[in-house]
């Protein structure tokens, strides 16, 4: 076997292996991003991760060791419902007025409307799981995760009805998307926020996706926090939850870029449809 590598590639391979086995320090991660952005071998890095995972499965982890506690399963069930609701609002790109309609009908039909929505969802999840409906055997019925889904609009409304003291609310400024507008709301203390986007161009997820970046005063401005990848499926107004991948200390600017499907770790910033700066 030939293991003679150019010095830079050898270093990148070492970093890929380290990343896959025991992780990178902050400085090593920066070095990895720099070397990897030059060669764009994220797929290669993932092959090492898959290798380490196969080894781990072979020796390190026995799935039969212990069952996940029921309480944890309940929480995941609720998270799954929320994920599906978010995904629907993103994929469907439903206009604001109809954003929450999908699951509100479920709530009305089952007469849950009189109850506090959040409490009802938690209760429903517990009952469903307790009743052994964790796994859906009848594909003709609604699944439990669908039945308890909380829409992005509902979560946004809850968020804005009791806004945190450090709520940031700024208008988007168009850069490469002259017709687009909207606003972004964010809370550092809650690590939660949403984007309201109007008339941003529809994207083809197979070719490109939008990606949010959050600039944090506590971090290197060359490496903003990844705020998540998302799609716009229709013109009009769309609500998108922000999914910061690492904690944000103090957000000072938000930028939406156009990237390859799945997003990138370091953006070339060639296409920046919208920017929003905190005064």
């Amino acid at each position, binding site marked *: 076997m*030939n*293991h*003679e590598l150019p010095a830079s*590639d*050898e270093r990148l*391979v*070492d970093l890929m*292996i380290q*990343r*896959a*086995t*025991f*992780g*990178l320090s*902050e400085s090593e991660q920066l070095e990895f991003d720099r070397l990897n952005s030059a060669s*764009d*071998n994220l*797929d*290669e890095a993932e*092959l*090492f*991760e*898959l*290798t*380490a*995972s*196969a*080894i*781990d*499965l*072979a*020796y*390190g*982890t*026995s*799935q*039969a*060791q*212990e*069952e*996940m506690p029921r309480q*944890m399963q309940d929480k*995941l*069930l609720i*998270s*799954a419902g929320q*994920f*599906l609701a978010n995904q*629907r609002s993103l994929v469907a790109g439903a206009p604001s007025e109809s954003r929450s309609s999908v699951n509100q009908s479920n709530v009305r039909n089952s007469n849950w409307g009189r109850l506090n929505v959040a409490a009802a969802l938690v209760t429903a999840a517990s009952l469903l799981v307790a009743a052994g409906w*964790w*796994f*859906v055997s009848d594909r003709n019925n*609604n*699944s439990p*995760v669908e039945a308890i889904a909380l829409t992005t609009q509902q979560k946004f409304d809850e968020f804005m009805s009791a806004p945190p003291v450090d709520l940031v609310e700024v208008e988007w400024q168009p850069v490469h998307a002259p017709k687009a507008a909207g606003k972004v709301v964010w809370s550092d203390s809650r690590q939660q926020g949403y984007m309201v986007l109007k008339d941003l161009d529809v994207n083809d997820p197979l070719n*490109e996706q939008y990606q949010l970046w959050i600039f944090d005063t506590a971090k290197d401005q060359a490496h903003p926090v990844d705020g998540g990848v998302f799609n716009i499926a229709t013109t009009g107004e769309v609500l998108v939850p922000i*999914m910061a991948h690492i904690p944000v200390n103090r957000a000072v600017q938000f930028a939406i870029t156009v990237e*390859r*499907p*799945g997003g990138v770790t370091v953006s070339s910033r060639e296409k920046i449809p919208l920017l929003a700066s905190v005064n």
Partner: protein
Amino acid sequence: MLSEIPLLHRVAKGEPHAVAECLDRYKNLVWALARRSCPDSQAMEDAVQEIFLKLWTVAYRFDASLASETTFVAMIARRSLIDLSRKKSSVTASPIEFDSFSTAEMGAAERAELNDEAAKAAVLLEQLPADQQSVIRLSVFKGLSHAGIAKQTGLSLGTVKSNLRRGMLRLRSALVGNESDSGSMPTSVAQGEPR
């Protein structure tokens, strides 16, 4: 003949039944991985939530030609857990170390539970030279750094690095790589190519 759509691709399409099935199928695997690396129950719960959210979000990236779904799920879980451990270590300045656990030889029953890929990995790992096996076990299972492995084994730092590199390259080539030899970086991945 129509091929069955992988579960993770149905998850990516937002099929509620698929999301529920995904939870049911992989909950114990994710729980076991989190249990091994998290210091307390709250950290475990947070980690498991994060792992599944990440899994559902990137499910569309699953490529059956590279690995099984189980291995892909384990990869997403390991990635999240390593990131969490690294963040924790940067705050506490403590070394990253998964809880120690026995890697003693598995029984026949446990081996039978392994998916094909994991079973192949077990065989391949045992075929590596002993020093390469050792560093891979310590890095993959225990999350030890190069320095930690050097300290534990008495090997020099350079030897640890080269053993880990050689062993992982060989395993990657045999398990998930498409090349006959993975000694050099492939150039087939074009810049900016959609996944």
